[in-house]
């Protein structure tokens, strides 16, 4: 009897789960598998791919290119784009951490009713259009834009600032885009922190820096690391920000991938780049999952 009931419950659970699982499995997991497959196919002569004709050209062409005379030369263009993406993502993550941690600490120390409002204020930008938020920075950063015009009027600068369409502008835009992802997990960790521990540290003669780095930071480490991953990962795959704010000299992985499906029409190469990006991201997630086993991002050890 109980056996039968349990079986019934299991059947019902999987019937309820099936539609969502199948939908994501069919329209997301299968496409990712297909993408991995396309990345090892031969490029079609007029764009597209030669189905069933295998080739590792796509991965090979990341490092090397064939010259007109048939010789093979090392090509560092793509490597540079990858390095730039990593570097920009790293700087963005650090900036976001520097700005995000004090804010999260401030929020966690507020009375409860303010805290919810502050959390809501941090999340609002996440729900607004990324394109529009980056466009706002064009208005601010461009020559004769708001910042340039004000600096000029105040007599601080007399030349145009020439910030838009540089990696610097991309960095500002990326930090702006992904900042909320840093604050929320750190806040989630700090909110659960027992601040009596901090008081105890002060009572025992610790100064502020010591209390911060010996008590608060270690206890909120899962949130800090989760925040860093949540900022770093979307930065690495960013497309909109470098496209709008960066010039041709600050192209990132996302733009390189998009180009393979636009002008370059090299689908296997685009698939290989996307697959590499995915592999890096999943690796970061796995390392995090192994370090903080069984905890959701931002959760502190109980």
């Amino acid at each position: 009897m109980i056996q039968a009931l349990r079986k019934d419950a299991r059947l019902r659970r999987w019937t309820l789960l099936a539609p969502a699982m199948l939908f994501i499995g069919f329209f997301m997991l299968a496409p990712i598998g297909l993408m991995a497959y396309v990345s090892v196919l031969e490029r079609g002569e007029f764009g597209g791919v030669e189905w069933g004709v295998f080739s590792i050209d796509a991965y090979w062409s990341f490092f090397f290119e064939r010259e007109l005379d048939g010789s093979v030369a090392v090509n560092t263009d793509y490597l540079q784009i990858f390095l730039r993406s990593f570097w920009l993502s790293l700087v963005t993550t650090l900036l976001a951490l520097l700005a995000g941690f004090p804010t999260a600490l401030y929020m966690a120390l507020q009375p409860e009713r303010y805290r919810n409002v502050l959390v809501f204020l941090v999340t609002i930008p996440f729900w607004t259009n990324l394109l529009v938020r980056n466009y706002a920075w064009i208005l601010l950063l461009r020559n004769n834009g708001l910042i340039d015009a004000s600096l000029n009027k105040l007599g601080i600068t007399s030349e145009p600032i020439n910030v838009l369409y540089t990696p610097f502008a991309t960095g500002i835009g990326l930090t702006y885009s992904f900042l909320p992802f840093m604050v929320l997990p750190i806040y989630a960790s700090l909110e659960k922190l027992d601040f009596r521990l901090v008081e105890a540290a002060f009572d025992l003669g610790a100064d502020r820096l010591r209390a911060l780095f010996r008590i608060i930071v270690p206890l909120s480490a899962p949130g800090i690391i989760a925040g860093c991953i949540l900022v770093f990962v979307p930065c690495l795959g960013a497309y909109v920000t470098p496209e709008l704010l960066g010039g041709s000299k600050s192209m990132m992985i996302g733009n390189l991938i998009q180009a393979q499906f636009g002008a370059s029409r090299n689908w296997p190469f685009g698939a290989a780049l996307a697959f590499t990006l995915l592999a890096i991201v999943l690796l970061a997630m796995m390392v995090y999952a192994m370090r903080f086993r069984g905890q959701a991002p931002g959760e502190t050890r109980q």
Partner: protein
Amino acid sequence: MSGHRGNPLWRFRGVAPSAGLFFAYLYLPTAVLIALSFNENRIATIWTGFSPHWYGVVLSNDDILRAARNSLVIAIAASLAGTTLATFAALATNSERFRGQSLVNGLLALPLLVPEIVTAVATLLFFVLIGLKLGIMTVIIAHTVFCIPFAYLPIRARLQGMDPALGHAAADLYANEWQAFTRVTLPLLWPGILSGGVLAFIISLDDFVITYFVAGAGATTLPVYIFGMIRIGVTPEVNAVSALMLMVSIVMVSISWLIGRARR
């Protein structure tokens, strides 16, 4: 943690001004954009006077209206489908732990973990392979995928906050399972479903990267259209239509927040 009676904030005085700077950084650019959208001048960044003129220009532009209609159709269809699937999944995962749970959790979180550009590439290749013509339909399918986790999270949170004793009480009062579900669980779950549905709707309405890849020529959405406008240049029309999108999102997310907080 009984309030922070001995609030240690006084020790970390630096955090208040830096939090202030943080919120200024977060909101100033969009505030500037909204302010400039009411500028009467043709030159988009120099203020000459207040005027809603450019909103009129935008709202009488047929291409923008067509793109907005596409966006609405897609967002409504995708958020309805995604929220339905998410509600089923949340009901299934709410009870005790079960075998295969981590697989289920992983699959449900997949659309949030994978970088958008990767999803976009994979989905495009998939549609091309199965021979589905790119258009409104392909965009709806692609959006439904990422609407599922965004709707799932608030619904799941609502379910977890519910008192299991209510279900037992219904059973004690001779409700069969269906009655217990429709009379007790569902009414209590509605705010979660509604708030999840609104979030899915906003995410779909705002999506650019995935749409850009799988939309094809006939299914230009508002963000894709705005992207095209931005590339041509900074104009008062872009300011107005961007500000409109911003305000729609902010209003919707506020609604979702208020619903989510209601009757907790």
